[in-house]
């Protein structure tokens, strides 16, 4: 009966709540040696990759949260869990008072998701057709559709390529269209996984400006993943840093800079493992770990 417990009701204004979420992937390891062929077939070595370890997080309504970390840190896994595409191994997830897996159909009608390396556009159709497709599948009422369509067309500049086939768009145009598509049903939360990946500076700036505007004008909660800290800082007031599945930092950018900004870590490895010496004194070595020097 133990394990993470979610609040009985979402705290006022909280829209995303993760409590003790864990996710582990199992990867089969294969040897390249012919002698290991039977072992590969019958008893392959399995490596466990812990993508998320006891992740707990809450996001309030109208917040813009940057979710950052290096490759393989667990960013996309979190977004997949929050967008109903993946179930956690342990822990609880509740968004807008719903379980993303159990209440999938009702839930995904209230969120918007953009994966930077995927597209929801119909490839061999004009951009306009994908928006009409979205209207029908999401069952968006006509007045709301017209209103939102007008807004995204204007703010994202979709008019210039509205009747162009999606496969003929540039990456920046495609991303703008995908973002517009994600907003068409007026989602309460927007999950953006690397939405600016591969975009040039100008396209990136326009995209970020649009997300800011949507958040400010429509109170849409935004969770955005990226590697680019400068870009995230421009957009979000709060940053959640994830590293090897752990939340390493959660707070405002200012605090992050205060805590880490003036410090660098220099790792020095010596051939025999003995600590390097400076002015006759061993530098900050700990038993079994490489010496760490604060600069």
């Amino acid at each position, binding site marked *: 009966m133990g394990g993470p417990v979610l609040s009985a009701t979402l705290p006022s204004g909280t829209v995303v709540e993760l409590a003790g979420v864990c996710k582990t992937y199992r990867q089969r390891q294969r040897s390249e040696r012919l002698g290991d062929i039977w072992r590969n077939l019958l008893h392959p070595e399995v490596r466990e990759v812990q993508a998320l370890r006891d992740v707990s997080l809450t996001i309030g309504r109208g917040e813009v949260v940057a979710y950052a970390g290096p490759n393989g840190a667990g960013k996309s896994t979190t977004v997949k869990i929050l*967008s109903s*595409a993946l179930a956690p191994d342990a822990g609880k997830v509740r968004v807008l008072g719903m379980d993303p897996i159990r209440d999938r159909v009702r839930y995904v009608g209230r969120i918007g998701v953009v994966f930077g390396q995927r597209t929801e*556009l*119909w490839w061999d159709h004009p951009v306009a057709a994908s928006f009409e497709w979205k209207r029908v599948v999401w*069952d968006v009422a006509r007045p709301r559709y017209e209103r939102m369509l007008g807004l995204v067309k204007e703010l994202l500049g979709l008019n210039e390529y509205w009747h162009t086939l999606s496969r003929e768009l540039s990456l920046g145009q495609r991303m703008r269209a995908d973002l517009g598509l994600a907003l068409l049903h007026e989602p309460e939360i927007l999950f953006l996984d690397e939405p600016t990946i591969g975009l040039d500076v100008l396209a990136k700036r326009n995209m970020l400006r649009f997300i800011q505007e949507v958040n400010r004008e429509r109170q849409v909660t935004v969770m955005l993943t990226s590697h680019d800290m400068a870009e995230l800082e421009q957009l979000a007031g709060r940053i959640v840093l994830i590293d090897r599945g752990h939340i390493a930092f959660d707070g405002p950018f200012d605090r992050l800079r205060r805590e880490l900004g003036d410090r660098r870590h220099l790792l020095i490895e010596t051939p025999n493992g003995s600590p390097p010496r400076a002015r006759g004194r061993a530098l900050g070595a700990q038993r079994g770990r490489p010496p760490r020097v604060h600069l």
Partner: protein
Amino acid sequence: MEAERAPGMLRRLVRLWRLYATLDLIWLARDARQALLWSLSDMVTSAAGVAATLLIAERFAGIGPWSRPQVMFLMGYALTVEGILVMFFSNNILHISRRVGRGQLDHILTQPQPIWAAFLTEGFCPFTGSAVLAAGLALLGWATVRLGLAVSPSWAAAAALNLAASTAVALSFSFLWASLAFWAPRAAEEISSSAVDIIVQLKRFPLDGLGPLLRLGLLTCLPAGLTAWLPCRYLLGQARGVWAAAVTPLAGLLFVALAAWAFRKGLEHYGRTGSQRYSSFGHRR
């Protein structure tokens, strides 16, 4: 929406079919020359598909106990089943292992509708996928006239029910094998194509001359016989009785149940592990 009532869901399905029909027509009509070439090549492919069986029937004045018009009827039935599959389940729904193997199910999971509703509607191509169905229905009609079959309302209903059941068997067979792609996405990416191809190739021949064991295999493990031969025997009056009437629809239900069970298991696995690979190829094209 999960608890959407039946009339509401039916209205949604009709709306979605209309949407996909429109998208299909727009795609076909984007270029007059391409539209003409597409239709022409589709007809040639359909004709080539039945040519081997028809030539054998012509050369030997039938195949086994099946006369030439009866073989034509069988061909018409087989083509009609194929046509229904192509018309309703294109866009890699019939070849669902591609979507599973390429990690593209996420696109369906983020839509606010039951997964089965997406499968039932997203592959609807009444314009680009109608050539095979038209050829099948024409052949079926021609053979029915040649055979002098008395087409009563009950016979027509039985034909429609058997056609639906045969389609369900072929589609379920594809989904059954496609479930493997949840566990082996790369290796089983094309397994639906192989499953569908083998059914399409084998269903065009009468199975009377085969030994009982082989015939049983072609009605169970590899159910090609259920997608043309067995239902045609009933519709042509070669097999009579309640069992003959019910066997294909019952087999259809059984295969649908099996496929739904296997695919659900696969989806549960997918929910736990996700997909480690993603390809944009073949998605929404």
